[in-house]
C-alpha cells in the first residue's frame, strides 16, 4: 500500500512521498548472522562510529540513525534498499485509530522537540474528544 504524505511548513510547499518501512527484523537478522560468535565490541569497531550498546539495540530491532544504518549496510555489503519495504495493509490495520492520526500542519520548519511532542498530544486529545462527541458547536 502506498501511503501519501503531505508535508507542510512555513516554507511553504507540499509534496507527496510514499511511506516506507525499515525492515528492522531483517536488518537485525543479517547483522547477527554475519557477526556470528564475534563480540559486539569488535564488530562495532569494524563498522565504525557505533557503540556496542547501540549495535546491540539494533540487533534487538531498534531503528538505527541514518549514518549508522548506512555504515552497517556497507559493512554487510548489502544495499540499503534491501531493508526498505512498503507498508503492508495488514500492518496498517493493526495500528489503532489514534496512532494513525493524519492531518495538515502549518508550522515552522524547525519545531522544538517539545512543541512537536505537544502538538502530537494535542492532536490525539482532539481526535479523541471529536470522535467521542465532546467538542461542541457542531
Amino acid at each position, binding site marked *: 500500500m502506498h501511503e501519501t504524505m503531505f508535508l507542510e511548513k512555513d516554507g511553504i510547499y507540499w509534496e507527496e*512521498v510514499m511511506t516506507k518501512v525499515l525492515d528492522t527484523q531483517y536488518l537485525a537478522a543479517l547483522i547477527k548472522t554475519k557477526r556470528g560468535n564475534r563480540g559486539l565490541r569488535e564488530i562495532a569497531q569494524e563498522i565504525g562510529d557505533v557503540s556496542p550498546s547501540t549495535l546491540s539495540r539494533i540487533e534487538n530491532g531498534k531503528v538505527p540513525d541514518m549514518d549508522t544504518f548506512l555504515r552497517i549496510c556497507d559493512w554487510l555489503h548489502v544495499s540499503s534498499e534491501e531493508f526498505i519495504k512498503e507498508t503492508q495493509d495488514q500492518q496498517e490495520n493493526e495500528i489503532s485509530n489514534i496512532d*494513525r*492520526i493524519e492531518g495538515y*500542519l502549518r508550522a*515552522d520548519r524547525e519545531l522544538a522537540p517539545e*512543541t*512537536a511532542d505537544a502538538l502530537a498530544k*494535542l492532536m490525539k486529545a482532539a481526535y479523541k474528544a471529536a470522535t467521542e462527541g465532546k467538542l461542541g458547536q457542531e
Partner: protein
Amino acid sequence: MRGLDRNLREWCENEGVRWRRELKLYAYDPLPARLLAQRMKILVISPMEIPEVDELILQCLLAENAGWSALTLPIDKGRHLIIYNPTHAATRYESNVMHELAHLLLGHRPIRFHQLSAGLLQDFTPPFFLAHLEIESLNLADERTGSEPFEH
C-alpha cells in the same frame, strides 16, 4: 515566488465568488475564515477548547513563537477539525485558517504524522524509516518550492 498559474487563478477566483454567493456576500466583500469554515461545517477551535489537554502542553503550544500556526485533523466521514494558534493576531488567524481550508477545498491528501529526526511529531512512531523519509521530503521540497500552486 512565481504567481499563480492562469487556470488555477481562474479556479480560485470562481471558487471565491461561489462561496461568497453561498454566504450571501457580494463578490467584492471580504470572506472571513470563520464564516467560510462554518459554511463548510468545519469546527475551528483553539487548543484551550479541547478537553483533557495537560496544562504543560497548553503552556508549550501557547508560548510566544511556539512555531506552529494551525492544523487540520480529519475526524471521520469527511468531517474535519481545525485547531488554530490563538496567540496570533487576527490578520494572521485569517491567513492561517484560510490556508487550512484551502487544503480541504483543493482536496489535498493529509500527511501521516510520525517523528522526523528534527522532531516533527513524536508519539506516532511505528518503525518507519524516519531519516530516509525526511531526506526524501526535503529534497522534494527544494525542487518543488518554485511550483507551489499558492502565492504567499
